[in-house]
Structure formats: structure tokens, C-alpha cells
């Protein structure tokens, strides 16, 4: 009875995750690039299954302000099919490694009209249930400074200077105190040598050290 229960629970544990697992696709959230440069849009996925030979990747593009998306890339059956009619004709290249679950594409010579949302959809049969992931491409003439970089830099520099000044102040106090300490010791040392020549009738004075006030 117990063994039957144990076997049933093991079987359930084995079945239930396979029914509730889904493929999870990862792309970036947003990419910034300069006009005329190349950009690599990364896409990878996580799946509980081994990477099958029928794994497929497909990229679709939706321009900013438009509601329609077009397909620009498809990888299936071991072959990659790039855009040969649309806006990315002769500018798209497949740089991914499907066996390593990487479906990245390279877009060359960016133009302002490339601003938009790129969606990657990957399927790893029999694991096909999943949500495509989108990355937004922003093409700039000049890459803007990210929010908070200059703020953090100014705050860091000023606080660093403050800490440096405090450290130097305490170091100077420590060094000056040490110099006073060493001067007193050398004076008493000279007096002691003269006293030993006079048959030790002269008792050495007590060593007193004056700390810096």
C-alpha cells in the first residue's frame, strides 16, 4: 500500500511539472544605438526539455506608431531565413547558435526608420507554450547620457573629497603627535650618556612625554 502510494506520488511529481512548464524567452528590454551603427539583438530561451532539432526562432518587427508587425526572420529545420523583401533587406544577419538556445540577429547600418519593437518567439518542440518577448530599439544621432550618471558622479566626487580631507586631517594630527614624542626621547637619551661618565652619581631624570593638546 505504502509502496503504491510512493510510486504514485513520484509519477505525479514527474508528470505535473511537465504539464505546467512553459518556455521562457529572454530578450533585452530596450536597446539604444547610434545611426549608422550595427546592433545585435539577443534572444535566448529557457526550457525544461533538451534542445530539440526542430527548434525554431522567429523575429517580427513593429515600427513605432504602427499597429502592424511584419516577420523579418525565421529559423527552422536547421536553416535561417532572413528578410529579403522588407525594410531590413540585405541588412539582417543571423548570429545566433540554436544548439545553445541563442537566436540573436544582427542589424547593420541602422536608420531612424528602424525605431520600433522587435519581438522574438522561440519554440522548442514539444515545449511550445510560451510568451514572446519584445525589445524596443531606439536609434539616436547622439547617445544620450543615462539618467543618474552625472548625479552620482558629482555626489561621489564631493563626498570622496570630504572623506579625503578628514583622513588627511587625522593623519596630520597623528604625525605631528609622533614627531613631538620622538624629540623628547632623544633629549633624555643625551643626558643619560653624560651621567654614566660621572660614576653614576647622577640619576637619570624621569622620562615625561608631553602629548599634543
Amino acid at each position, binding site marked *: 500500500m505504502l509502496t503504491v502510494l510512493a510510486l504514485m506520488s513520484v509519477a505525479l511529481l514527474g508528470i505535473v511539472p511537465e504539464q505546467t512548464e512553459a518556455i521562457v524567452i529572454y530578450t533585452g528590454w530596450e536597446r539604444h544605438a547610434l545611426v549608422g551603427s550595427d546592433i545585435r539583438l539577443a534572444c535566448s530561451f529557457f526550457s525544461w526539455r533538451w534542445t530539440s532539432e526542430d527548434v525554431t526562432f522567429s523575429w517580427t518587427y513593429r515600427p513605432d506608431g504602427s499597429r502592424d508587425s511584419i516577420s523579418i526572420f525565421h529559423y527552422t529545420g536547421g536553416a535561417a531565413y532572413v528578410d529579403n523583401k522588407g525594410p531590413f533587406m540585405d541588412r539582417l544577419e543571423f548570429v545566433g547558435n540554436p544548439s545553445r538556445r541563442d537566436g540573436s540577429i544582427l542589424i547593420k547600418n541602422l536608420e531612424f526608420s528602424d525605431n520600433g519593437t522587435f519581438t522574438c518567439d522561440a519554440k522548442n518542440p514539444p515545449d511550445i507554450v510560451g510568451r514572446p518577448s519584445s525589445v524596443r530599439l531606439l536609434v539616436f544621432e547622439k547617445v544620450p547620457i543615462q*539618467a543618474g550618471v552625472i548625479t552620482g558622479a558629482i555626489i561621489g566626487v564631493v563626498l570622496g573629497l570630504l572623506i579625503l580631507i578628514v583622513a588627511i586631517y587625522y593623519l596630520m594630527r597623528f604625525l605631528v603627535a609622533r614627531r613631538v614624542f620622538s624629540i623628547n626621547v632623544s633629549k633624555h637619551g643625551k643626558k643619560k650618556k653624560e651621567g654614566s661618565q660621572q660614576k653614576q652619581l647622577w640619576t637619570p631624570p624621569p622620562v615625561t612625554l608631553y602629548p599634543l593638546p
Partner: protein
Amino acid sequence: MLLLLLGIVLLHIVALVLLLVSTIVSVWTSNDTGTSDLWYNCSTATGGHHCNPASTGEWIQAVQALMILSIIFSVLSLVLFFCQLFTLQKGGRFFLTGTFQILASLFVMSGAIIYTVMSPEWVPKDDTYGYSYILAWVAFPLALISGLIYVILRKRE
């Protein structure tokens, strides 16, 4: 004596609160449909309250940094005041406290000046200055006076 002490601490805290409100509340510019700067641009133009992060130009980031630094220095000055209150010798002056508070007031002043001079670059012409901006300008003389009082004040038993 105690009254004087309380008054000075109260002045310091009022300046600090003004600095905090001016920095945290994002109403340096306001117009009919919304407010903007330092951190968020909020508008009620397209129905409902929408807030977007403020523009990421160099000057607005400099103003953000200077306001945050002024808050940090004012808080440090308050902490140092209580430290020096118990450790300073009789007749000594609160130099360190006063220095930090005067530095805080200088940071607020430069932040407000930079905002005044450079904001026409990203703010439309018919927008008016909001209350955070005014509070920053009020906090500057309060912090300066508070710092000068610390420098002049002598410790008595």
C-alpha cells in the same frame, strides 16, 4: 540658554525640512496641465495622471546632485552640532558645524542658480516656477544664517 539652543536647532531643522521638501517633491516647474522637474514630469493632459521620468540632460542631473549634497551636508551639520555640544571646550566655537551648514547653503544656491539659468533649454516659455523652486530659494538664506550663527556662537557651560 536652553531657549537659545532650542531656537538654533529649530532653525536648522526648518532649513533641513525645506531642503527635503524642495528636493523630493517634483514641482520645480508648473503649468496648467502638469508639473515637472526634478525627478518626474507629471501631466494631466491626456486624461488621468501620467508621470514620466524627467529629461536626462546634464544640467538637470547637476541640480539633482547639488540638492542631494545640500541635504547630506545639512544632516551632517546637525549631527556634528550635537557631537560638538558635548565635546567642545568652554568658549569654543562650532566651526565645523557652521562650515557644513554654510556649504549646504552654497550647494542649494548653486543648484537653484543652475536651474534658473539652464531651465529655458527644456522648459516651455509660458511655464511658471513651482513651489519646490521657491522653497529652495527660501532654504538658502535660512541655511546660511543658521551656519553663520554656528560660527559666531560660543559654547558656555
